[in-house]
């Protein structure tokens, strides 16, 4: 598969969250605000890129029998570093993401990509795959959190994680009377996710049907 195709796949057809149902714990728990979504998404993307690169670079020397524990050590190290750096330099993000930063280590996406792609491909390919999947993940988180934040608080706020200054804010005051706080709760997360999954399934079915139709 050529690089561009692979990259785009990460967004729609093989969207990690809506298509492959990986990395759900964080996706659902975090996506209450777009700040959280972007913060978490970028964190996962960076960890994914670095882990893919390192594992790909090590692929020729890593013995196959212990490859899973080795991947785990690499990923856990990267995640712990990320956690410490975020705690020190982006404290507000650290407070809102909390334990979910550590839980990136068990995010199926990272281990899954390491096993399925990075261990079998070159460094550059692995890096791009990481970028694609990571951005696809961020994209899905953003989708869910835009819906949830709008419906639950009738506003969207984006702030700078380093200084907590607000970059932009959209307030739909006219809709404030209609806000549904259910969407900031877990139940709302499930329902939003269900709706998006159905939409993505629909898109996927249509494109599959088109492919079958042209054969």
């Amino acid at each position, binding site marked *: 598969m050529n690089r561009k195709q692979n990259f785009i796949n990460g967004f729609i057809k093989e969207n990690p969250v809506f298509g492959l149902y990986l990395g759900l714990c964080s996706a659902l728990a975090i996506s209450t605000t777009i700040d959280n979504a972007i913060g978490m998404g970028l964190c996962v993307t960076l960890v994914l890129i670095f882990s893919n690169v390192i594992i790909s670079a090590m692929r020729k020397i890593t013995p196959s029998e212990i490859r899973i524990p080795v991947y785990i050590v690499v990923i856990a190290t990267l995640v712990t570093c990320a956690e410490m750096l975020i705690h020190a330099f982006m404290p507000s993000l650290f407070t809102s993401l909390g334990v979910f930063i550590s839980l990136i280590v068990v995010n199926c996406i990272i281990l899954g990509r390491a096993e399925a792609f990075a261990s079998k491909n070159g460094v550059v390919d692995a890096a791009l795959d990481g970028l694609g999947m990571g951005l696809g993940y961020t994209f899905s988180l953003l989708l869910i959190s835009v819906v949830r934040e709008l419906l639950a608080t009738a506003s969207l706020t984006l702030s700078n994680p380093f200084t907590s200054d607000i970059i932009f804010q959209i307030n739909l005051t006219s809709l404030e009377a209609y806000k549904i706080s259910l969407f900031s709760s877990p139940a709302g997360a499930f*329902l939003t996710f*269900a709706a998006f999954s159905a939409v993505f399934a*629909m898109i996927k079915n249509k494109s599959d049907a088109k492919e079958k139709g042209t054969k």
Partner: protein
Amino acid sequence: MTDLFTLAISAILINNIILSKFFGMCPFLGVSRKTSSAIGMGAAVLFVIVGASCITYGLHYLVLVPLGIEYMQLITFILVIASFVQLTEIIIKKFSPVLYKSLGIYLPLITTNCAVLFVAKDNITQGFNISEMLTYSFSVPLGFMLVLYIFSAIRERLDSSKVPASWVGNPIALVVAGLMAIAFTGFAGLV
């Protein structure tokens, strides 16, 4: 500190690991099509969580803290969990090949089950003593098993109903999960 019973009830019902904390989603959506495999999965997770929690708890307080290397917590915990799951796999394969077959790929995937790592970490974060740690480590997977069982029963019924094409499978399952989550919030005032 809350007494043990309150801790258990709160872990099973009020702050249910799947419905209010979202941990354990992958097996939740993957294994929950049949009630028998749901129970088997739940039991396996229970065994792993209790075992791994005990080991990681001891590891943290007897090794990491005295040596001042708390930053190694994540690596050591996840390695312990991975090894323990490997051990569980060997045990299940030996004693119940049927269960082993039905669980399939999801058994090694318990390693990446957020719930296991979460409980191991939470025991430390919440500063539990040994009896609280044991109660919590036992109750959380019980809650997991409960929800998994209810969910699989509903899914068995769903499989024989007419669901719109795009919603078949996971999307409709998630709607069910959302409704269950709303129902479980009713437990909020229980303790």
